[in-house]
């Protein structure tokens, strides 16, 4: 689980082109959503943070899906590792780091695009990523 999250972050960091970045951002939001859903029932007092983060991830994902430059097809990802659950605290921290990276990448890369619609989508999605980070970070 943690490896999947870290892999996604690395992938996000290494993506340059706007279409590819939007595609990876969509996957990253969806990964956050899936992981939050998997862990929200078992996380006790952190339930509220996980639930709200999942909703923010869905919003971010839908915003990215409406961006003009996103490729129509999904990237085929192997998500076999997602079946395993991990320590909810560690998972939340890892997701917070991924969300921070997502917010940063969307803000910096989308600024350089020519399309105003892509820029708006990137800004709005970055806001959602930032709210996920704020919800899940422990510090």
């Amino acid at each position, binding site marked *: 689980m943690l490896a999947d999250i870290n892999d996604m972050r690395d992938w996000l960091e290494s993506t340059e082109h706007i279409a590819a970045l939007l595609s990876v951002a*969509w996957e990253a939001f969806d990964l956050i*959503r899936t992981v939050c*859903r998997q862990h*929200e*029932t078992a996380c006790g*007092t*952190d*339930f*509220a*943070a996980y*639930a*709200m983060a*999942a*909703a923010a991830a*869905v*919003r971010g*994902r*839908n*915003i990215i*899906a*409406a*961006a*003009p*430059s*996103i*490729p*129509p*097809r*999904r990237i*085929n990802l192997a998500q076999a590792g997602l079946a395993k659950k991990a320590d909810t605290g560690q998972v*939340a921290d890892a997701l917070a780091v991924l969300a921070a990276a997502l917010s940063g990448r969307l803000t910096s890369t989308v600024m350089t695009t020519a399309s105003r*619609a892509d820029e708006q989508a990137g800004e709005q999605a970055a806001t959602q990523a930032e709210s996920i980070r*704020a*919800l*899940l*970070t*422990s*510090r």
Partner: protein
Amino acid sequence: MSATFGDLALAGREHLDFAITLWQREPTAEIAAGIMLGIRHTAEVMLHCAHDTSAATPVESGRGRDADVWWRAAADTESGLRTASAALTEATGHLNLARKRKLGSAGFHIYQAGQFLAAARDLLQTHRTASPETGTMSDWPAVFEAPEFAGALLTELAGWSKQIADLFLHLAKTDPLLPSQSERLCLRTYRGFQAVVDAAERAAARTPVSPGAAKLLHNMRSTTLPARRQPSHAEPMGELCRQAMASAQRIRAAARRDAGQANWSPAISSESWQWMAEAASIISHLASQILATIGGQDHIRHQGLPTGQMHSASLATASAHAGWQQVAWAWDAVTTETSGLASPAIADMTDLVLRLGRITFDNPLWTPARMHRAPLRKAADLAPNPGELAAVVATVHEAIDTLACVASADRQAVELAYRAWRLHVPTRCLRVENDIPHSFGPATNRHLRAIQQAYNSAVTGSTDAAMTLEVLVLVLQAPSTPLATARRLSRPTEPVLASGHSATGSASLQPKDLYPPGPTVKNLLRLGVTDPFELLQAMLIDHAGRALVDKYRGANSKEAKGHNRHPAVHHGTQSDRYQADSLHRRPTLLPPGKSHTPHP
């Protein structure tokens, strides 16, 4: 604080008493004339009240003959007051009183009594009609269809009639002003008022009005919503409870108003619905933890509250939580053409989440963020005395009742949105085989059904939990007693399975009995486990075991399958069938607000 129906009615009765005293002190023709005019005005107001009540008679009450006696009494009351009012008008005409300008002191007080009754009637009217300013409906319009509530109102009118009839009889006997023809009219007037008294007494002899119904009527306030107060600083427990209940009331009003706008309002979006569902699942989770914490307290046993009752309420709210989780998950796969969290209820829902969280956890500045997490409050800190216990239980009850209203209103709203072609599916969520050349496609019947099923669970779970909490509230005489009484009065005795809390605010689902405790639950309780979610899980395990055994006994297998569904919604199976379903239903529609990338 606004006046209640009881305040206004009492003030009116005091004016009546005072008028009688004045008349007894000085029984002159001048004062008698003023009294006649005052009574004519008051009788007209009473007639309007009686008409409102008899007009609320359901076409088919379905509550049996005993309950119908109050509806018959309403008709008799209206008829009696109509007779009295007509006779009074005629009598004042005969006596040439219509041109009289001064009522005199006694007449003035009777006129004032009528004015107070008119104000009390206006207060009730605010619950019957939508506010012209905000478009919001009251929580309680369904209560007017409850025979017991009608009984309380008719009993109040009978009290007024008795006072006036006595005065009138006295007036007719001693007034030197009355010619013989007017005496006959006065007798008719007296008989009209007496008919009102008799109708109420006859009905009460068969179906007495419960003290709860009378108390509810007297405690009713106008539908003016409390102002929003954001939780900006650390608030003491009493303030947290008060403001949380105010937020709950505002949310119910907003949910009812929004439900009818879902087919066109851009502010109502899938993101708003999902956010509300997440907030509702958090609220029910917090409520369950609060009830589990106070359920462990020793002193609640001394308040006539068995610990089992608190425990049942905790389990019921855990079940509501599971229902709301289903709703939140169902919205992962469906969207609307507008986005954002613009629904007016969201601000108040945020306040409610924050305040309930600050009641649950030992952090006065708690938020859902992990950095503000805190341990649960200790029982002694949460409800140190009976007053605070009642306030906390009332807060939880108001919150859960609100969730039942929101679930019912949102279920109706989603249906409207679907019919207005507002629901869509991001095609990237579908499988690769579904080669759709747009970013979004229309949601199908299958998607709608998945969402509706989830809302059905939320409605059932929340309504059951609210009904369980009503018992606690009524035993404790907690601040939410009027709401609990109103809900119980407006609920038919016969179960109506098709609807829960209706969009107008009444609950009509009967409490679903929780499964009886089996060996797993008993073992956990023996080990001292009190966590409601663990116990709910154990209950389901026991139920599944019983169902399995029943299956091989050849009985009850269908029921068992239906009950043990996991909250998770399997989007995969929906998307499998998406394309075929979608193509059969209608051509691909692009949401106007969403841009899309054409297929290469």
